[in-house]
């Protein structure tokens, strides 16, 4: 059993390193989010409210981007919701290892994000999966909120400074970074390109936020209702998120 314990410690160290790297990666994104909130005229409480209560990077950015362009709450929420739909799938993947009383599972679920699921599925052992989930989830939660505060405070009311430092350009760059791994897949690349075209063409003719929501329609070209072998053959544990 001693050997197993040493392996276990090494495996935990590997997961902590993995978690640390994803935590470091979200830091500039958090600053950009805080700055985007300031730019949109939001208070510090609202910026932090998004980062603690919504706590889903892409959704937060989408909603704030729509609001900043003068979009309605319905459009902002819809854009955010479409981007957080994948949390549903993550929840199913992580559910088997998030045990304990219902209140504890409910609390743990707030950490259900890309990073915690990625690190949480980076090992086979249930205890290690749980360890990875919390290491990445808690790490990102703390750093995401701290960097949101830094972004909101350092760039609060400083639209001029945001433009001078090119902070506004970090938002599309961050979105591009998020979509990039998906572009390696032919199907994903096609719907991404179509979504971009739909949104671009609609911007001058429909209210703010609608173009982003409308981009979701691009998925019809791959007929998602038809069963596909790739999804059907995927293991229930959901490797390769």
């Amino acid at each position: 059993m001693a050997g197993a314990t040493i392996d276990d410690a090494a495996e935990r160290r590997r997961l902590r390193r993995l978690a640390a790297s994803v935590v470091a990666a979200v830091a500039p994104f958090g600053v950009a989010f805080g700055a985007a909130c300031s730019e949109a005229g939001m208070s510090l409480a609202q910026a932090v409210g998004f980062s603690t209560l919504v706590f889903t990077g892409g959704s937060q950015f989408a909603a704030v981007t729509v609001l900043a362009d003068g979009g309605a709450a319905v459009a902002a929420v819809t854009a955010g919701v479409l981007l957080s739909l994948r949390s549903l799938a993550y929840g199913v993947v992580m559910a088997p290892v998030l045990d304990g009383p219902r209140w504890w599972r409910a609390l743990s679920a707030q950490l259900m994000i890309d990073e915690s699921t990625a690190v949480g599925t980076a090992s086979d052992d249930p205890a290690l999966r749980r360890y990875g989930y919390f290491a990445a989830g808690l790490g990102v939660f703390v750093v995401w909120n701290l960097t949101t505060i830094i972004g909101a405070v350092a760039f609060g009311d400083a639209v001029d400074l945001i433009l001078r430092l090119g902070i506004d350009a970090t938002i599309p760059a961050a979105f591009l970074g998020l979509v990039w791994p998906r572009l390696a897949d032919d199907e994903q690349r096609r719907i991404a390109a179509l979504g971009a075209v739909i949104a671009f063409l609609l911007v001058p003719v429909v209210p703010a936020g609608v173009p982003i929501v409308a981009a979701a329609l691009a998925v019809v070209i791959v007929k998602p209702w038809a069963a596909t072998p790739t999804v059907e053959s995927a293991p229930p544990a959901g490797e390769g998120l």
Partner: protein
Amino acid sequence: MTVWLTLLSLAGITYLFKAAGPVVLGGRELPPLVVRLADLLPAPLLAALVVVATFTDAGSWTLDARAVGLVVAAVALWRKAPFVVVVILAAASTALVRALGG
């Protein structure tokens, strides 16, 4: 008011998505269409956000320094640069173009 309404509604719905698995489903499988949509939707939405945040401003098409930042970010991603580097390079190149009067 619009901000708080957006914030709380989005937080509520997003939380339902996050908690459905661990609290309600307990590991049961989702309908294949939901799984498939969850996999497909991020790509067109993120691509749309990239385009809208780069090439439009207050409801009109624009071409400015942000485009340079995006191209630089794409090159950095293609060269497999870490996320932090991508974001910093995008900001720095946009700032440079603006400083030069672009």
